[in-house]
């Protein structure tokens, strides 16, 4: 099949490439560009490990063809850190609150939470749980992920995170 020329902005840098129409965005990122932060955890658009931010939306990059992302502005976990190179509040929160173990779901989870906090600056626990329901984690039991996102929300809002009493 004829390859298509695509151009998109990924983590602030413009990327131009030739892709086969059937190349899924996740393979384009991982295999063609070496952006291996987003992962593949399932075949059926359920696990969310491949989540990237595409034009201000969280999407599962295993269910988008790279050609569909022509012209898009994409952020992956590699582009989440602050412009000055310091870690984003979410990256810090996940470490502080032990919101990860094997780390495989983490890039997708943080990238999803990044968009969630843009849309809802101060989510409740219930809203966080609903907001990350497209991301599966097999290690943490989610409780510390919720705390990590609460930590980040507090930090971004300029307040000190108070852990809820157990």
């Amino acid at each position, binding site marked *: *099949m*004829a390859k*298509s020329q695509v151009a998109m902005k990924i983590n602030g840098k413009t990327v131009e490439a030739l892709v*086969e*129409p*059937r190349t*899924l965005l996740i*393979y384009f990122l991982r295999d063609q560009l070496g952006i291996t932060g987003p992962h593949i955890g399932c*075949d*059926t*658009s*359920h696990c*969310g490990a491949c*989540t990237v931010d595409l034009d201000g*939306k*969280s*999407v*599962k990059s*295993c*269910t*988008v*063809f790279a*050609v*569909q992302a022509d012209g898009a502005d994409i952020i992956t976990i590699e582009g989440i850190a602050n412009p000055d190179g310091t870690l984003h509040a979410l990256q810090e929160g996940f470490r502080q609150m032990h919101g990860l173990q094997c780390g495989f779901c983490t890039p997708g989870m943080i990238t*999803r939470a990044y968009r*969630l906090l843009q849309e809802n600056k101060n989510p409740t626990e219930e809203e966080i749980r*609903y*907001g*990350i*329901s*497209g991301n599966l984690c097999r290690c943490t039991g989610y409780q510390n992920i919720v705390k990590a996102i609460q930590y980040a929300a507090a930090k971004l809002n300029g307040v000190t995170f108070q852990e809820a009493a157990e």
Partner: protein
Amino acid sequence: MIPGSFNYHRPKSVQEAVGLLAKLGDDGRLLAGGHSLIPTMKLRLATPANLIDLGGIADLKGIRADGNDIVVGAMTTQHDLIASDLLASKIPILRETSAQIADPQVRYVGTLGGNVANGDPANDMPALMMCLNATFHASGKSGERKIAARGFYQGLYATALQSGEVLTAIRIPVPAAGHGYAYEKLKRKIGDFATAAAAVVLTMKGGKVNSCAIALTNVADKPLLAEEATKILIGSALDAATVKRAVAAAEAITSPAEDPRGPAQYRTKMAGVMLTRALARAKSLAKG
């Protein structure tokens, strides 16, 4: 998993899309949000030679009021439906239902048009569109035509949409002010297809049901409009005995398949339980 090869087309207008469909015939397949089609292609259960991506057609997006109807472009996403203040005030059951579809990532991309057009009985919007008595606008070679949602679904992945046609918009009459509504969906976990679900829209007058529409999701090879149940309920005060009769009538039209969500008998009974609960909640929300 890797889909088979295909040629990719990204028309800029409905006309262009219709032209491509006419040219490519059975080799052409429309791509909307892609969250049903792309996984199917990855599993190689679908191997279209050409994909016609509707994502580049601006005319297919948006939500607008038109007289007493609301017209939703086919490529409007579930996320857009949830975010719409117009829908929240006029047809709140649409937001309620959208919020129960899949997960946040899928709702950013999944479209109303795709959900209603592909004929999957597990999708939530088809039953809701039947309940709301929506009309689907389709464009083909010979122009545009309108198809009632209530006559659209013919069987598993079989709809009244003809080959060569593109579903462009969904026109939904705004339910009467003060209507009650509920979409009750039993699912194994968030994001799952329904084990069974029931959509109810009703109005009450003097404590009695004045109008009512009921539709059921995923308990047959197509969405079901529960007309007999509706007839039983009209004029009643939704007393327990009448609801029981109506639920029995609704259960009687189901014919679910056994799947990992449960055996057929269970899913039929769950359609009944969901309907009972939807009626109670709709009643509690209805004014009059």
